[in-house]
């Protein structure tokens, strides 16, 4: 079961490099469900407080071991997603230490995330030193497209999973060996619901919408738009043929998140890409302040 969400099975997550598609990263299984509390796995034991392991937990398997029991209330105030959040902060620290910009790209399926990345890599691949983590339930298709565009890429196939989490990104970025001052694009699984809840440690979250979708998307999926920093409005070359009301869309999105920025682009024609590139460069300047 997925470490943070349970929506898929860890053993079905694969990490593949298109340069060497047959080699998989090592994927260990971990068991928190057993009462042995063995922690034989090697990933971080991210409790919010330290504790020693010099006592046995066997009595949990033997209720009623004798003696009077005392009732005790423990105030935990612990976030349910705390494990993911802690790991996300580790990722963020790694990015900051190496001055890496990391963008979490979220959208519905088919809004053009991969096409936006392809053009970005072709136009600015050298300047930005682009690296990509691709998230999809199945197939290497997107990773192959990114590789053809000219950037190193790792494909994460989540199996049944509906989103990427911080642990998946942590493993994939180790394999990518990101150099200093590089730019990492994390293309999340196409889904406007679940990815909103999972911090990956990104510098900024970018939501992409295409004008072939309804302008009320931010009202329908407010969590995603509320947590995003930038909204790329893609496929603007199709606007003359559609009834999409750009101003109405911006108004609804601003009601959900008044800090969100907008850039109108077309991955097909390249319209608006200068602004998108400038926005990325601006994030690097903000990061060095």
């Amino acid at each position, binding site marked *: *079961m*997925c470490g*943070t*969400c*349970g*929506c898929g099975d860890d053993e079905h997550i694969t990490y593949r490099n298109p340069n060497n598609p047959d080699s998989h990263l090592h994927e260990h299984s971990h068991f*928190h*469900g057993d*009462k042995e*509390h063995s922690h034989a796995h090697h990933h971080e034991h991210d*409790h919010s407080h330290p*504790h020693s392991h010099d*006592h046995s*937990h066997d*009595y*949990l398997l033997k*209720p*009623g*071991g004798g*003696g*009077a*029991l*005392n*009732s*005790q*209330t*423990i*105030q*935990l*105030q*612990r*976030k*349910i*997603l*705390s*494990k993911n959040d802690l790991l996300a902060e580790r990722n963020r620290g790694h990015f900051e230490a190496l001055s890496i910009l990391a963008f979490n790209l979220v959208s519905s399926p088919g809004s053009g995330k991969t096409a936006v990345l392809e053009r970005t890599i072709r136009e600015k691949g050298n300047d930005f030193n682009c690296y990509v983590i691709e998230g999809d339930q199945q197939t290497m298709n997107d990773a192959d497209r990114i590789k053809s565009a000219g950037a190193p890429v790792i494909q994460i196939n989540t199996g049944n999973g*509906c989103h990427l989490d911080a642990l998946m990104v942590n493993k994939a970025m180790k394999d990518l060996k990101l150099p200093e001052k590089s730019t990492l694009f994390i293309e999340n699984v196409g889904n406007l*619901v*679940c990815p*909103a*809840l999972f911090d990956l440690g990104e510098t900024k979250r970018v939501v992409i919408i295409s004008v072939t979708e309804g302008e009320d998307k931010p*009202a329908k999926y*407010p*969590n995603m738009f*509320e947590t995003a920093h930038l909204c790329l409005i893609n496929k603007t070359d199709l606007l003359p043929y559609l009834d999409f009301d750009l101003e109405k869309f911006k108004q609804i999105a*601003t*009601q*959900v998140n*008044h800090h969100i920025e907008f850039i109108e682009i077309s991955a097909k024609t390249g319209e608006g890409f200068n602004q998108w590139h400038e926005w990325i460069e601006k994030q690097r300047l903000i990061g060095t302040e």
Partner: protein
Amino acid sequence: MHELSIAIQIVEIVEEEASNADAESITKLELDIGLLSGIEPDALEFAMEEAIRDSLLEKTHIVYNYIKAVVVCEECCNEFDTDDYFNSCPYCNSLKTIFIKGKELNIKSIEILKQ
């Protein structure tokens, strides 16, 4: 259906904390769930019934504290309750509001029995 994911995570954390506290059993679990956290209450309670099966929480009394959203206006600092993302400040009509309550996804406390 990410509520099932959340429910499984709750059971995992509570079992871990109970084990750390040398608990023999867990009698009560209290959760703070914001009404705009992205969680559907009915779906979460249904998912919890499944997630606690064969766990240490199987007989635990679970209390759900659903927390109504409160926002503060960035312009005039007025605080007011809300049910959704779309409301202007009733005092100054500004839409520049930020949530100060209603986004919680927390395990508040557990009540355990121990020697």
